[in-house]
């Protein structure tokens, strides 16, 4: 069986396993699984901006907040979830374009700080504009949608909606990355000046990488609000943006399945470390530090890191034998 067929088979098995998972999970387990899918969508967007286009962003939770608040406010105003969600995605896309402009002028950690400032501003807006966002009291009783008269209020039904959106979002991203756009993003990451000399419109691709990444965060936010039924500014702070970055980096920045693995680790590992009680954060933190030292390319780089280590070892042995 060829690698691509094996890959496709593994993908189908994975999605099928997820599809039957609700039958074996209790309420909290199903909630965690749904939240994991929401985080995958958000982290896929950040992976495009950071991993594929090589830019820095610490505003991703802020974009997710825009998506969540847009859906929550719109639904409270009587607008359908199915109208509110595309609206949230468009608004996030536009904010993404806006925040992409600093990236045309500054790079690396300077860009990181510029985006971080934007996230702080958003949280202040969510907190202070009480008339719109409910301030620190947040927005409560956000209902889950209906689809063709069928209620998605149940945990399993909502899980299937989130699963379907995740699969569609992943397929769209895979298509984008396999198109010339994917090549242009990689060129932008590897060397913008080189990319420009080959005719890549680096202004457009820089802005689009932020805008599409933000749109994915908007989708995640739109799914997040009805999942938790209540939103306030706290899940959209800089801490969550750092967590998203951690998901991308731990899984494997610039690798398609990196966010899937990274968000599983960032979300589920703390759950499995609960037995360690007060020590669980220390163990989690230490695991991440060790991984960054020995696997800076993320967990999905394990194979290539081992291959590189082997070829270096072989070269040394060959040198010693001469």
């Amino acid at each position, binding site marked *: 069986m060829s690698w691509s067929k094996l890959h496709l088979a593994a993908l189908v098995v994975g999605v099928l396993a997820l599809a039957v998972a609700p039958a074996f999970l209790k309420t909290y387990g199903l909630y965690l699984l749904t939240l994991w899918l929401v985080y995958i969508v958000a982290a896929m967007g950040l992976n495009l901006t950071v991993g594929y286009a090589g830019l820095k962003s610490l505003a991703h939770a802020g974009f997710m907040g825009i998506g969540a608040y847009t859906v929550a406010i719109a639904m409270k105003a009587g607008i359908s979830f199915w109208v509110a969600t595309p609206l949230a995605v468009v608004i996030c896309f536009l904010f993404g374009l806006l925040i992409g402009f600093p990236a045309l002028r500054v790079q690396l950690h300077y860009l990181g700080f510029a985006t971080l400032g934007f996230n702080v501003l958003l949280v202040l807006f969510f907190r202070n504009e009480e008339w719109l966002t409910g301030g620190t009291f947040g927005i409560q009783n956000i209902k889950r949608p209906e689809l063709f008269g069928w209620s998605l209020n149940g945990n399993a039904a909502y899980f299937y909606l989130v699963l379907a959106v995740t699969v569609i979002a992943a397929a769209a991203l895979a298509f984008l990355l396999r198109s010339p756009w994917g090549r242009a993003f*990689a060129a932008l990451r590897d060397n913008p000046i*080189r990319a420009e000399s080959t*005719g890549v419109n680096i202004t457009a691709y820089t802005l689009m990488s932020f805008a599409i990444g933000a749109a994915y965060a908007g989708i995640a936010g739109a799914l997040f609000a009805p999942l938790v039924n209540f939103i306030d500014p706290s899940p959209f702070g800089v801490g969550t943006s750092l967590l998203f970055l951690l998901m991308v980096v731990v899984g494997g920045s610039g690798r398609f399945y990196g966010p899937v693995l990274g968000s599983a680790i960032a979300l589920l590992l703390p759950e499995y470390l609960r037995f360690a009680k007060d020590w669980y954060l220390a163990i989690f933190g230490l695991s991440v530090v060790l991984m960054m030292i020995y696997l800076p390319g993320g967990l999905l780089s394990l194979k290539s890191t081992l291959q590189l280590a082997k070829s270096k070892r072989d070269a040394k042995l060959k040198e010693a034998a001469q």
Partner: protein
Amino acid sequence: MATNPSSSLIEFKSVVAGYTHLTILNELTLDARRGEITLLIGPNGAGKSTVLKTLFGMLTPRSGEVRFNGETINGRTPRQLLAQGMAFVPQGRNLFGSLSVLHNLELGGLQLPRQVLKDRIEEVMQLFPRLLQRIDQRAASLSGGEQKQLEIGRALLVRPEVLLIDEPSIGLAPIVVQDVMNLLKNLAQSGKSVLMVEQNVRTALKYADRALALEMGRLALDQPAAQLLEDPNLNRLFLGGSAKS
């Protein structure tokens, strides 16, 4: 240094350009003709690479006029110039090592319609059969000569009228340098123009039609390449002595 406007493809007229507070080109006037390999030589800091960057829109002239095909191109972007028929192969390694040979080639023709791009890639493959054998290999795994072929091939995808190439021999074995120079010669013979910056002056002069020597951002000498190759002062000139003495 009389120029013949009828055959000039590229013209610099009193161009002043540089980086932030540093002025490199000092009212530079020069031209490069159609169907010729024009070689830019001069000591380090003379402004050779700056000429190419200014021409390709990577630097905006502070004053003066840059013309291509009789049209003023001051302030145009690299993408606009590519569309107008100018391609640039900068100094050093210019490939995207993590991408395959095919994907690197595709990047050179992002603005082309899909089918046209496919046909052009086939054209380039005919020119560089070694690349065809390595089409799915990562660009970083190619030899130095193959990488240079790929860079030139990528630049040719847009069928440029003029190829700007900066130090093509850097990091290449002498035998590979010969291959690259022969390739440029063939391009010139097929009607394309080449404007080349090269430190390996003696080798490059053998293949060039015309040599322009820069000094302190000004044109110091304009001679047929073959004639300059015979000049006993060539080494002194290249190492920074006055070209006018």
